[in-house]
């Protein structure tokens, strides 16, 4: 026995952290938002979530087994489940199942496995799926059910969302349209139209607090996005009241979901804290610009997508501060 010692280099201990722990940690953090959407959209939310998760896990399994022909199966590491959940959260709760399956195929197939699987994708897979669907099925992707219809799915009644009200105000140049926006309190809780997982800001913030507490993410990306949107839209609102105020901007659309869960995706966000701040500020800026001047009412997903593309560049130029580095004057 004694002559068979393991010899390896230090360190000889490990924190016990694992990919699974991080992925399931994010999934746990999404539970409050999932409960909120079940409470507001009932059956529709359940169908969309289950379809999306099942389809993503299935495609990951099928591609690993039949196309990549890898021995090691990765479906249990939680990343496919997470992509499925995030994709579902980005869809209206009355979207047909076949569209969800296409979205899942694009997200996992094109967004992730084409590049080699976990850790290699340049863009957030769930976002790839969402943007593909948004461009391919603009009607289905932009009619959102009114919350509270717990037993309806495809037949749910639809209505304008806060973002479409904002965009209407901008197009007509009439600031009084903004008075149709729901109360901030309702938007905070989620009593408003929108994609199934993005409506309840408070549930998403709760999940974000959990992620930071568990050290799964750091504060840099979400805080810099939220602060940038707040300041920029605040200034624009002061300059011209036709632009919605900062609080409605923050509580509407996919902003909280994007800032806390989509932009912080490990694989596609910068590595250094400095880089993360630049990335966050740029996402916040692009979001407000697209929302205010673009063709689409929502800019969050495009903003994150664009900045995903800049992540390698940011990593090249934003180095962490080295120990003992002399500040050049």
């Amino acid at each position, binding site marked *: 026995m004694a002559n068979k*010692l393991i010899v390896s280099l230090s*360190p000889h201990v*490990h924190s016990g952290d694992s990919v699974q722990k991080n992925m399931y940690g994010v999934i746990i953090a999404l539970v409050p938002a999932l409960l909120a959407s079940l409470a507001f959209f009932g059956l529709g939310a359940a169908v969309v979530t289950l379809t999306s998760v099942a389809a993503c896990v299935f495609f990951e399994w099928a591609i690993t087994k039949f196309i990549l022909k890898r021995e090691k199966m990765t479906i249990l590491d939680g990343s496919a489940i997470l992509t499925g959940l995030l994709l579902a959260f980005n869809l209206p709760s009355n979207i047909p199942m076949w569209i969800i399956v296409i979205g899942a195929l694009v997200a996992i197939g094109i967004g992730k496995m084409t590049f080699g699987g976990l850790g290699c994708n340049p863009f957030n897979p769930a976002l790839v799926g969402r943007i593909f669907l948004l461009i391919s099925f603009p009607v289905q992707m932009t009619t959102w059910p009114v919350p509270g219809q717990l037993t309806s799915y495809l037949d749910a009644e639809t209505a304008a969302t806060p973002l479409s009200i904002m965009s209407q105000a901008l197009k007509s140049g009439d600031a009084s349209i903004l008075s149709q926006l729901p109360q901030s309190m309702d938007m905070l809780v989620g009593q408003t139209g929108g994609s199934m997982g993005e409506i309840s800001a408070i549930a998403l913030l709760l999940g974000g607090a959990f992620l930071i507490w568990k050290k799964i993410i750091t504060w840099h990306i979400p805080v810099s996005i939220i602060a940038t949107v707040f300041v920029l839209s605040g200034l624009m609102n002061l300059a011209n009241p036709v632009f919605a105020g900062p609080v409605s901007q923050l509580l509407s659309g996919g902003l909280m979901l994007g800032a806390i869960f989509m932009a912080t995706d490990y694989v596609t966000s910068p590595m250094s804290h400095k880089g993360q701040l630049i990335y966050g500020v740029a996402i916040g800026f692009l979001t407000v610009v697209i929302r205010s001047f673009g063709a689409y009412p929502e800019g969050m997903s495009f903003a994150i997508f664009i900045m995903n593309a800049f992540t390698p560049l940011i990593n090249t130029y934003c180095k*962490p501060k080295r120990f003992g580095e002399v500040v050049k004057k």
Partner: protein
Amino acid sequence: MKTFRIGGVHPAENKLSAGKPIVVAELPKQAVFPLSQHIGAPAVACVAKGDVVKVGTKIAEAGGFVSAPIFSSVSGKVNKIDSIVDASGYRKPAIFIDVQGDEWEETIDRSETLVKECDLDAKAIVEKIKNAGVVGMGGACFPCHVKLSPPPGMVPTCVIVNAVECEPYLTADHQLMLEHPEEILVGVQLVMKAVNVTKGYIGIENNKLDAIKLMTEKAVQFPGIEVVPLKVKYPQGGEKQLIDAVIGRQVPAPPALPVSVGAILQNVGTMYAIYQAVMKNKPLFERVVTVTGKSLANPQNFLARMGTPMQQLIDACGGLPEDTGKVIGGGPMMGKALMNTEVPICKGSSGVLIMNMTEAKRAEADPCIRCAKCVSACPMGLEPYLLSTCSAKADWERVEKEDIVSCIECGSCQFTCPSHRPLLDMIRLGKSTVMGIIRARSAKK
């Protein structure tokens, strides 16, 4: 509470042997002294087969300025000068001495009385330390007198004593402080005198409250010496991290020395050895060693003679457990896995750690998910994921540009990696290759 500013991790402390009194280990039957127990040139043997030596007899001369002499820890007869696989895993020349009795050199003061007054001047103190073979006892084993002789133009402003013991499991320094606080403080005073400064700090992590209390009480009689409690964070015992934690100054990138920000660093065990060398004429031939591990029957702290095989200390703790997977010389973060347990205790042996099979095995590596936890953990502000990938691709130019030589090999990145990637293995490869390239370049000039 003070601590260093960049990165760091907090491994489970597992100080199983904390509070266990220092037990004098039994004499070995044969003591083995590798000639390279320090950084720098190996020592040169000055005894031959058949020579009779006493405890404290010099058996090897320093092999240069950056080197240290070696003294016998036992009395007996030189059996042979051969080689042995030491903690580094390499076969190195060593002196083997068969133990007979326990006869000490007469010059050594073996009394327990505390001697405080020293009328030697700075030069004489350094000379005495040098001639007693004292090296840094925290693990790096840098010859002590070299640190106490700063290069021209560098002016030390303070002495910082490393009593952090940030490695999990190890308690040797902790117990030494509890049992010999005054000797350590006299040692600090001697070093302060040797480098002509008036300020001395003793950095102790906050998980050793009894030592902080005792040292603070005793330090009152020693003007200029201050105990600095530090927040528990690994690798606070790294010299650059400790200087940052205690005096808030960061040593620039290599080749800058700690003295470039005015600090002279010594481990607390070294301070005790300095006291004994200067005040008691006792060269360095024994040290405190923690022998520990979760499946070990009775983890303990020993005062062991150099050259004692580690197996003997393990036996004194209840023997090597059945499920042993790895035996580590030092702590779990930076210690070296040993090939066998016959490796002798050397000047830098702070601990022997036994890990069971389950603890000893590394988990299978997953793909990098770019979570940036290694970047947050790195105490030197480097990007371990990048250094590791580029080293694996043998892109030496890139890793040199990314400051790979600043890496202190603390292992925080690999410890924290959720994908269990062997980051430090690759970085070590890159670092040693780049250092070779740099040496070759400067040799050409």
